[in-house]
């Protein structure tokens, strides 16, 4: 950030925003944005950036085009991806070796490089413009869209898309009550999973007597498979800060904490940069914009505990203690951080605030359904063609998300189930695909909205194994205080593990159901109370699969080791030695061009041969 003057008044801020918007609109150069969030970097986007910058230098195109490094765009399957503005060209899976071509052909000579275009996984057709890609068509990217436009490490870039304009509007002519009324009217509900009306929560905290008041941004995002908050923090940290500023003003808080999980180093880096830049500009600190409004933000890092996503455990963690949840009442709005009134909201919730202020409560409430307003970001992962972050209006069906946006299941496999809500959620089967995605519908069906993780499973996923997976996760992440949760999850895990090992017996399913209900009823916090969902939903919709494991001692999906066998199909075997070479137990014998033989007594079912075979000659039964 170049020498920036502190902004001391609302008028100055509005002027600064205006001039940045002007600068962006009058930009003559083409902008080449490269997505470089954590996933993008893991796939080599930093190397791509370097080679693009080099290629541009070599071709003398520095005054024609500039490279902008952005956060995650959401279309993770296509990473590293680049977009060229204003032509709106989208290139996917870009490699450093493509840089020369991009510079010479596309930038200099306006030629499209076909092999870098996205091609639809079902139709095979290539698409040039981002807007035409099916993945984006049914999305409504009011939050994620901006990730593709800005450099998250440059506060001025945020201003250039109108950033901090909502803060200016709030401080110039809205009272705290006006702000709370607007948020209430919009119908925004907490995006962390519980779906509590945000405006109401703010009101409780504001009305509680007690000083000082605190606001917290919950960026713990513990659900495995969910990474929306990571993307928002990495790609647009200033919007989160702006939301918190507006919230602090409305509630009467002077200090805020952002609790980020330990496993998100890049997000921590970007939010730290954002905070220091906002402080330098005068948007954080004392007497912000001369309105007598003080607000400071601190970062508090998690240390690897899922339970710290729970409000009271999170508070305990910020206080430097173990993340053991506390009795509510008293609720955090009354006695939270250091027993003071505290308002906690999720990253996505905070990110929605500036948009609601800027565009109005009506605008927001027109998106979504009656009970669930606005959009929701979901992480669509697992056995799905278009893996990525999708932002959709509430009320869209699961079918549309999985097949229209997600592009369906890879390798032509059959859809089996979709898991929503993380370890607190459940698995929904084929029959539920027409379900609209909103808080109530998902809860009724036996799952929850949760923070937004959506894991797609196919015919090769064993639902009993999935239940075992979640129970293993929960028994490890439970804080251990409540007997019901600690022993409940442990015993459920033991019984399900026995079932997957062929030791299941009559009465096991009924015992699991009884245990699940006891765990749910008797536990103090959300972790224990929702621990029943993975087991009850899989039993509800896939009872037969459990029965097959127990009675027939078979795993139809071919996953549970003790119940399957790897077999060589003689007809398909070409004798290529591929499986022989990778078998760690030397259980496969054979010669070149002769059918191989697998010795079952030596087989440890590691799956290496199955992975290595290109002729579908290894079968799992």
């Amino acid at each position, binding site marked *: 950030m170049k020498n920036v003057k502190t902004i001391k008044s609302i008028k100055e801020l509005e002027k600064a925003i205006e001039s940045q918007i002007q600068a962006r609109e009058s930009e003559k150069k083409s902008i080449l944005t490269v997505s470089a969030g*954590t996933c993008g970097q893991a796939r080599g986007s930093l190397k791509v950036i370097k080679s693009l910058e080099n290629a541009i230098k070599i071709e003398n195109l520095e005054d024609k085009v500039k490279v902008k490094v952005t956060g995650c765009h959401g279309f993770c399957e296509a990473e590293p991806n680049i977009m060229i503005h204003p032509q709106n060209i989208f290139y996917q899976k870009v490699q450093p070796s493509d840089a020369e071509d991009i510079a010479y052909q596309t930038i200099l000579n306006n030629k499209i490089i076909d092999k870098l275009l996205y091609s639809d996984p079902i139709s095979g057709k290539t698409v040039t413009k981002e807007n035409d890609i099916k993945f984006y068509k049914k999305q409504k990217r009011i939050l994620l869209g901006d990730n593709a436009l800005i450099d998250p490490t440059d506060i001025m870039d945020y201003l250039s898309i109108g950033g901090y304009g909502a803060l200016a509007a709030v401080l110039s002519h809205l009272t705290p009550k006006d702000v709370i009324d607007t948020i209430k009217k919009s119908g925004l509900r907490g995006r962390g999973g519980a779906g509590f009306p945000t405006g109401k929560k703010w009101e409780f905290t504001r009305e509680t007597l007690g000083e000082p008041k605190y606001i917290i941004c919950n960026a713990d995002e*513990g659900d*495995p498979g969910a990474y929306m908050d990571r993307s928002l923090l990495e790609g647009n940290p200033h919007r989160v800060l702006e939301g918190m500023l507006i919230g602090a003003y409305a509630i009467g808080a002077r200090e805020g904490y952002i609790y980020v999980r330990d*496993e998100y180093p890049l997000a921590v880096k970007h939010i730290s940069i954002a905070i220091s830049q906002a402080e330098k500009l005068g948007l954080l600190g004392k007497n912000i914009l001369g309105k007598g409004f003080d607000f400071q933000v601190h970062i508090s890092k*998690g240390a690897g*505990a899922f339970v710290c996503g729970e409000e009271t455990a999170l508070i305990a963690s910020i206080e*430097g203690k*173990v993340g053991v949840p506390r009795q509510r009442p008293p609720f955090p709005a009354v006695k939270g951080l250091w027993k003071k009134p505290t308002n906690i909201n999720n990253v996505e919730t905070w990110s929605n605030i500036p948009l609601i202020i800027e565009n109005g409560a009506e605008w927001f409430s027109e998106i979504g359904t009656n009970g669930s307003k606005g959009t929701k970001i979901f992480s669509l992962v697992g056995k799905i063609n278009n893996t990525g972050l999708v932002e959709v209006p509430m009320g869209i069906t699961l079918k549309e998300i999985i097949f229209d946006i997600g592009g369906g299941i890879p390798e032509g496999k059959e859809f089996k189930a979709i*898991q929503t809500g993380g370890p607190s959620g459940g698995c929904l089967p084929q029959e539920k695909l027409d379900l609209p995605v909103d808080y109530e519908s998902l809860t009724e069906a036996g799952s929850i909205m949760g923070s937004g993780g959506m894991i797609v499973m196919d015919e090769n996923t064993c639902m009993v194994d999935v239940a075992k997976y979640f129970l293993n996760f929960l028994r490890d992440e439970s804080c251990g205080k409540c007997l019901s949760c600690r022993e409940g999850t442990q015993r459920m895990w033991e019984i399900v593990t026995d079932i997957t090992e062929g030791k299941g017996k009559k009465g096991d399913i009924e015992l699991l159901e009884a245990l699940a209900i006891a765990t749910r009823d008797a536990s103090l916090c959300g972790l224990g109370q929702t621990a029943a969902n993975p087991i009850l939903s899989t039993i509800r919709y896939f009872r037969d699969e459990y029965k097959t494991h127990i009675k027939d001692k078979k795993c139809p999906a071919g996953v549970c080791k003790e119940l399957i066998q790897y077999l060589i199909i003689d007809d398909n075997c070409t004798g290529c030695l591929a499986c022989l070479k990778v078998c760690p137990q030397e259980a496969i014998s054979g010669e070149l061009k002769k059918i191989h033989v697998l010795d079952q007594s030596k087989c440890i079912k590691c799956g290496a041969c199955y992975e290595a075979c290109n002729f579908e000659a290894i079968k799992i039964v």
Partner: protein
Amino acid sequence: MAIEIQKVKSFITRYNNEKKALISILQDIQAEYNYLPQEALKFVSESMGIPLIDIIDVATFYRAFSLEPRGKHLVTVCLGTACHVRGGPKILEEFERILSINAGKTTKDGEFTLETVACLGCCAIGPVVVVDGDYHAQTTIRKVNSILKKYRRKEKKNEECQDN
């Protein structure tokens, strides 16, 4: 392992001796020594007036901390739901088999510590394995050995440079 009391002291003063910063202080110690040495914890207890038993509670509650020294290289296999569905457990088993240790343990020669993590938030590129901060995307069973070889080679190279 000998620890510098001054260094530990500096971690405490960095946060103005505030009790609420205990987790951050432990994170600094963990980053410095690759584990939480007993002497360091005792010093923090005396210096900050926090009962040792409470510090141990915190140190053993959170996954980020280790009371045992960690190996030179930290191999973290992601076992998040998406990585699980894509075959993460088989990757873990392969690491366990080749290194002859279970997850959570360190090899006898002190080279590798094998850990699991519930989710790194990189589900699109799963199964994910992180070694010393390097992310390895779309790991397969066959890639496991070559990943380990890469880091063993680094060791050999470093040793050779030192010998020279």
